[in-house]
């Protein structure tokens, strides 16, 4: 079953076939693809794209404008442009260096990635490859946590973490990552593992490997794409997370970038939109870099989520 599944995956589907054969076609037929229909398609798609990406581009360009040029200006090109806003933003907030916030966010994001990769892969292996009593029930519970509004658990969690004196530490934000609390990642990895041929496990078993051995030396190396996708999402979500840090981090020295950004907006006068935009850009920079580098993995990760669920 699973073997045929992986096979069909490598065979071009009817929708992709057309595209994949284009380089083989003679140049003439290729040129005909740029007929008026193609032109209409590209003009239309680009027009939609311009509208959609306008806020992002406006934000970027505003970060180079002096504060009084931002509000009310539809123009993208700054009249008196410069990097002054970035100089202001990099000065930090209230005596705390800008780089402290970057370091805090980075520590949290990297630790989240480690936690997610370790805990979710192990959990996914249990669900995908081992049969044990209660598996169906636990699987249903796992899926249910994906749909559960997390607000129903934060109050008791906060009370306990507060009593343990863990406010202003990263433990409340990281514990769940190391205990596979993000069902999305478990689900993603299960879906991926189901696509791996079972014959591999059986071959390993015949060679005398137990589950630990099979998991570490057979399944884990093959799961690289799913692990990469999960890592990128874990990083970005942790980097962008606002609610968790807002609850647990009160001391500005422990602030992550989103919290620092909010503090910055609170403290600067409303006229200094330029520095706010620069700070907002800096806060998004790692996310956008990750996106540029790994967009394929991200899009593939989102796509598998909806299929065969």
């Amino acid at each position, binding site marked *: 079953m699973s073997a045929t599944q992986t096979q069909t995956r490598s065979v071009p589907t009817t929708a992709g076939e057309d595209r994949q054969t284009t380089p083989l076609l003679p140049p003439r037929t290729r040129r005909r693809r740029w007929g008026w229909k193609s032109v209409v398609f590209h003009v239309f798609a680009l027009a939609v794209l311009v509208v959609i990406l306008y806020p992002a581009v406006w*934000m970027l360009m505003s970060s180079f404008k002096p504060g009084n040029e931002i509000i009310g200006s539809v123009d993208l090109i700054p009249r008196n442009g410069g990097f002054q806003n970035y100089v202001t933003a990099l000065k930090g907030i209230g005596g705390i260096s800008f780089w402290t916030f970057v370091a805090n966010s980075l520590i949290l994001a990297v630790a989240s990635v480690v936690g997610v990769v370790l805990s979710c892969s*192990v959990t996914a292996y249990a669900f995908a490859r*081992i049969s044990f009593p209660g598996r169906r029930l636990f699987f249903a519970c796992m899926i249910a946590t994906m*749909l559960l509004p997390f607000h129903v658990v934060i109050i008791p969690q906060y009370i306990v973490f507060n009593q343990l004196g863990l406010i202003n530490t990263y433990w409340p934000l990281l514990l769940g990552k190391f205990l596979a609390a993000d069902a999305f990642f478990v689900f993603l990895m299960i879906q991926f593992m189901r696509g791996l041929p079972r014959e591999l496990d059986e071959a390993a078993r015949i060679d005398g490997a137990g589950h630990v051995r099979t998991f570490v030396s057979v399944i884990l190396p093959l799961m690289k794409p799913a692990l990469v996708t999960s890592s990128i999402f874990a990083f970005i979500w942790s980097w962008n997370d*606002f609610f968790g840090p807002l609850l647990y981090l009160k001391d500005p020295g422990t602030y992550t970038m989103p919290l620092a950004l909010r503090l910055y907006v609170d403290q600067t006068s409303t006229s200094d939109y330029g520095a706010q935009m620069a700070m907002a*850009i800096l806060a*998004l920079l790692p996310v956008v870099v990750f*996106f540029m580098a790994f967009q394929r993995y991200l899009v593939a990760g989102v*796509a598998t989520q909806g*299929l065969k669920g």
Partner: protein
Amino acid sequence: MTATATLRTTTPRRARSVRARREARAGYAFLSPWLLGFVALTAGPMIASLYLSFTNYNLFAAPKFTGLDNYVRLFSDPNFLQAVKVTGLYVLVGTPLKLIAALAVAMLLNQPRRGQGFYRSAFYLPSLIGGSVSIAIVWKAMFIDKGIVAQIGSFFGGPPAGEGGWVGDPGRTLPMLILLTVWQFGAPMVIFLAGLKQVPAELYEAASVDGAGAVRRFFSVTLPMLSPVLFFNLLLETIHAFQIFNSAYIISNGSGGPAGSTLFYTLYLYLRGFRDFQMGYASAMAWVLVIVVGIVTVMLFRTSRAWVHYAGDER
């Protein structure tokens, strides 16, 4: 004879049970991190918040049992009713608009043309950054005072926004936040695209041969074949929309204003729980949310039997 027969059957059975037991042990060993997390971070806290919802608890004095008092008070609390109204409108209007945008762009991109991968990634980008504080700040700057949105609006002859622009106008903050969520149509779009790729081309050919036009093909082939994906997107986006927090918090500066127009459910819950430290009241709010989301989920699953079409699905 009989002795050997029973021997023959019992040994494999015993071996099987030994192996099954070993499997079970391995299964629970591998599951243990998740299981621990599930008990300590989900199931346990859920029970605790259910208990707290029947008490008065301010974090400092011991919880005092008050029965259904919190729930009764909820329904006479004008702020709570406002939060329900705002959030309900947001879910009912925002989610369908977002899915329509996602499906429309997915249909546009589902053609064998160059640059498809580029467009798909570019349209996906807002989904990735849209929930961040940065974008909320940008959104605010675009809609505030005589910001660009107000200018574009007046250019097209729209009514001028009041003091503070859209951000200061209680009638316009909700449309502004709905625009922000619709802007993030990329994630459901990617899922729609993946679904569209799985629709067999023969079906379209057959429909064309039978004389179906583009509109007819959409409603008779695309939509039914896409319905499982549509259902998935609808379910996830609806549940997601109930939990809007970041943008409302940033744009209203944590107040839910102006005039309670951005007092979304989770924002009010946060204010009650973590500003006023009314943990019991906030827990009751959380449980009402769980029940509402649960009912919506069950209703979606119920109705899905009528409109979700699993074509020749063996699963």
